């Protein structure tokens, strides 16, 4: 007789809506974020930053600051141990500025002191003599041959040309447009924070809120003059990321101060400093032309895209590539030329943010699709459906879409979602202006808009993208238990729950513990590119299957049922597996080849009420259909979709880091406006589950598509309500009231090299 319990379906497995372990602590204020970390004898760090967008440093005097109360260490560029530069993709960013500062907010000196206030006061007491230089703040101007060179290799960070079919093809119907996106901030609610603790062996342990522990490690260790083996990273509680934690911010500084003082040091940015401390979304200028047959079949897309990379490269090369590769959208486009360039300027550096380049081009090509629909007198949904990519069709980089491409499906299913009640409300709180009590219905017009978008999942273009998972199946007095260990950063997206669900389903064990991510295990890659479910989920799946195989082998050997876990687990089973997705090809000069692993698609429909007299907007409803492959945790998927739409809404109508001559004018949540619950509409979601054959359970990744096409859908709805051109986001009340469209001030033929742009007279 077998002692095993009868096989029942395990609760909390794949496909079930499972509550996350961090949700209640976060709601109750009990979750420990990076900024809550403490250690006995801990010092506090502070940073002195450049007030100039571009200046030569003529001298730094720290003598007075060093004598101030509580000060334990002051470090400037001349004190750095070894490597002075860091960077995600190019080594171009100084750990501390030396010689020149290139943006407002660039770190110049760091201080450790007994209290946070002493550190701040001492940092302000450091005297820096600057000789201001004339900043370049227009990225198109930065690309002109006469522009001053901000870096040794010039002002071009990346130049990507995608050509497909006959790039100079002609068409019956042609529409043109120029577009701009302002600088969006990731605005994670938890500002940057880390705690560095010096170790006996001369190394350092860093507890850090980040997106990718091992990439941080790769950048930090050389700047400390330490081998990677002496730098140990542990993930601290992350209060949101959205791309802003891909780059090193205070990691190196905190470690340098801890090593210099031989005391634990914590650095925490306040809200204002956070705006200066991390990279933002690339502002973009885009020039597009679309051609179609009279029947509404796309013939060509040509575009020039200029992304403002700011002072340092960060992930600009990959963002530029994405803007170009996905520059024609989820449509069959036989002929294309997209020329995208990222430029160095003296604006704050820009890098990764949810949607990563795909956001910028989607705003433009979807506006173009609506223009085309109007010119052809075809329904905008119909036009999109007619041109939707199908499985096997090639995108403009000549790469076919394989596995799963339900593009027409997401467009149609989204359009078919029931419309909200047609009545315009009369309560001011439900109307544009909200609590401002501005309208009780006066001036309000309703509009509806559609958009679709696409993006890659996982890292592209030959990058060795992998994740490592260790799964240990054991038993204790309460029965069998599985431990899952990876370095995947939980940044709020829910990877911890996904890993536990996979382990439960694969091992048939209900008790699963997910260990804290750190660098004692191999890399999991970044919590970005919508990739953790595919990659770390895939690694956990593979490790579980190896554990399961060993379990079956033991059962066979012992002549027992594999369910007899008590007997089979006298020795735990422990397996570590590295999971890779299929190879991608490095970028080629023009076609980009098989550059991507797979593609994600979504469509959005927005219904808005606009007070046309005051130019204020209330989004009434967003409906969406999203291609998710398979929803591992449906409630989490819907959460990602709603959150992504909130960010897309923010970009559409309010979120912008306002710059003037390189100065940030609104580094606070008072004036950098994020959507509130009164701005965020009900979201109606349809999940399209066409499993991708290469992904774990077919799950494709869900984090980014909601931010990509929600913005253009909302702007299309505002256009429908107002009749305004609205070719720039965020749409400001002035744009609606006065109707003056954005003009770049440059003349350029879409598809041409932006270095050949001419100033419009």
């Amino acid at each position, binding site marked *: 007789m077998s002692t095993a319990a009868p096989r029942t379906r395990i609760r909390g497995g794949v496909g079930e809506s499972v509550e996350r372990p961090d949700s209640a602590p976060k709601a109750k204020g009990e979750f420990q974020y990076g900024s809550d970390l403490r250690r006995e004898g801990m010092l506090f760090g502070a940073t002195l930053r450049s007030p100039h967008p571009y200046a030569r440093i003529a001298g730094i005097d720290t003598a007075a600051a060093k004598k101030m109360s509580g000060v334990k260490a002051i470090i400037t560029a001349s004190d750095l141990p070894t490597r002075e530069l860091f960077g995600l993709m190019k080594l171009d960013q100084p750990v501390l500025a030396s010689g020149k500062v290139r943006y407002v907010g660039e770190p110049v000196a760091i201080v450790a002191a007994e209290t946070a206030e002493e550190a*701040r006061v001492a940092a302000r007491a450091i005297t820096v003599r600057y000789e201001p230089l004339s900043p370049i703040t227009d990225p198109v101007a930065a690309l002109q041959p006469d522009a001053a060179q901000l870096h040794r290799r010039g002002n071009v960070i990346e130049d990507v040309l995608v050509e497909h079919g006959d790039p100079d093809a002609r068409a019956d119907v042609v529409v043109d447009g120029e577009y701009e996106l302002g600088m969006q901030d990731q605005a994670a609610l938890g500002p940057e924070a880390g705690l560095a603790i010096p170790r006996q062996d001369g190394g350092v342990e860093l507890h850090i809120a980040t997106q990718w522990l091992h990439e941080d490690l790769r950048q930090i260790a050389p700047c400390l003059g330490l081998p990677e083996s002496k730098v140990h990273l542990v993930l601290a509680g992350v209060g949101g990321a959205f791309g802003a934690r891909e780059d090193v911010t205070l990691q190196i500084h905190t470690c340098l101060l801890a090593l210099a003082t031989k005391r634990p040091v914590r650095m925490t940015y*306040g*809200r*204002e400093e956070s705006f200066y401390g991390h990279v933002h979304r690339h502002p973009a200028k885009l020039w597009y032309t679309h051609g179609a047959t009279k029947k509404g079949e796309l013939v060509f897309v040509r575009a020039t895209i200029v992304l403002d990379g700011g002072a340092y490269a960060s992930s600009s090369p990959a963002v530029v590539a994405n803007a170009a590769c996905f520059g024609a959208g989820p449509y069959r486009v036989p002929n294309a030329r997209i020329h995208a360039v990222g430029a160095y300027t003296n604006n704050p550096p820009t890098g990764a943010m949810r949607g990563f380049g795909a956001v910028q081009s989607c705003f433009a090509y979807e506006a173009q699709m609506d223009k085309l629909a109007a010119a052809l007198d075809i329904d905008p949904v119909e036009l999109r459906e007619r041109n939707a990519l199908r499985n096997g069709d090639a995108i403009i980089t000549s790469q076919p879409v394989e596995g799963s491409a339900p593009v027409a499906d997401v467009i149609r299913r989204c359009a078919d979602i029931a419309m909200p009640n047609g009545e315009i409300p009369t309560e001011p709180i439900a109307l*544009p*202006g*909200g*609590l*401002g*009590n*501005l*309208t*009780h219905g*006066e*001036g309000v017009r309703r509009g509806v808009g559609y958009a679709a978008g696409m993006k890659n999942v996982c890292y592209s273009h030959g990058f060795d993208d992998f994740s490592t998972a260790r799964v240990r199946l054991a038993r204790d007095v309460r029965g069998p238990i599985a431990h899952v260990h990876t370095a995947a950063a939980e940044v709020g997206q829910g990877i911890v729950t996904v890993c536990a669900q996979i382990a439960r389903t694969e091992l048939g064990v209900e008790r699963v513990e997910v260990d804290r991510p750190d660098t004692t295990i191999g890399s999991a890659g970044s919590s970005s590119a919508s990739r953790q479910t595919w990659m770390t989920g895939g690694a956990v799946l593979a490790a579980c299957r190896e554990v399961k195989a060993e379990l079956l082998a033991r059962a066979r050997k012992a002549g027992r049922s594999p369910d007899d876990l008590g007997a089979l687990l006298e020795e735990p089973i422990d397996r570590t597996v590295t999971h890779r997705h299929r190879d991608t090809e490095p970028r080629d000069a023009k076609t980009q080849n098989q550059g991507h692993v797979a593609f994600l698609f979504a469509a959005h429909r927005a219904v808005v009420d606009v007070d046309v*007299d*005051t*130019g*204020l907007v*209330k989004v009434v409803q967003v409906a969406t259909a999203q291609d998710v492959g398979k929803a591992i945790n449906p409630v989490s998927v819907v959460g990602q979709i709603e959150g992504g739409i909130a960010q897309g809404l923010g970009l559409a*109508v*309010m979120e912008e880091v*306002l710059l003037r001559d390189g100065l940030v*004018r*609104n580094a*606070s949540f*008072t*004036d950098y*406006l994020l*959507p*509130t*619950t*009164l*701005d965020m509409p009900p979201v109606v979601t349809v999940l399209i589950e066409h499993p991708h054959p290469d992904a774990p359970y077919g799950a494709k990744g869900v984090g980014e598509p909601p931010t990509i096409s929600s913005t253009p859908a909302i702007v299309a709805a505002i256009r429908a309500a107002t009749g305004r051109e609205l070719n720039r986001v965020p749409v*400001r*009340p*002035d744009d609606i*009231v*006065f109707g003056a469209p954005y003009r770049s001030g440059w003349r350029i033929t879409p598809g041409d090299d932006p270095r050949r742009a001419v100033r419009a007279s």
Partner: protein
Amino acid sequence: MSVHISRHVDDVLDNLSTRKDVTILAGGTDLLVEINFGRIRPSNIVAIDRVDELKDHSRNGHIRMGALVTYTRMLETDVGSPALQEAARTIGSPQIRNAATIGGNLGTCSPAGDTLPVLAALEATVVLRSKGGERRVAFGDFMTGPKKSVRRPDELIVAAEWEDAGEAQTYMFAATRNAMAISISGLALVVDRARRRVGVGLGSCGPTIIRATDAERFAAGLFDETGWDRPARPSDAAAREFGRLAAGAAKPIDDVRGTVAYRRHVLAVMGARALARVAVVP
């Protein structure tokens, strides 16, 4: 930085008269933001939120609102001004409404202070007290510039007072976000039918709260014609003209929240809507 917690007005006044550089802390919703940004670093803070005698509110034709009446209380009780209630409601965050006070709004004296256009339109009086006694200053004379008033360093704002002006009043503001936003521009309109007086206060469109006197005269003329005692809808043309005159009084600037052109435009729209709404209220 020292913090002294007061429980009595006399104790606050002692502190104000004997110590230098005293900053009053009421709800803290402005002060803490300033401190967090490092814009100010007060050396002596006197916290007054436990001074119960400043929490009184009385109305019997004449309203006296103690300086520590919070926005939440303005919403929950009949404070004697529907427009003031609407102004309190424009603050989207319950946490801020629970802490922010009318006295704090007067003490900060920002052109964006949301109760201030209402106090201007009500022709309210600010009550200031010092060791030397009490004085009353008309709101129009109280505010002299952005975050500047005639309050002397030894004086405490103890109350705001006004005559009950009836129900025909409103407040509205424009902001890019639907809640929790500082106004681009705001407008308060009070039609005191009993006293045959119109008050218009404009916020966030000049260095001080601005009274739109031409608009007030124009509206009074309309009520003279139609009769002050009965509700009557103004013509669209009259409402627009009223809005135009209200906007004409503004002295706006371009800043991160809005442009000069938009501020003028939206004030005209708000003026027209306010008059149309208020004129039909008995």
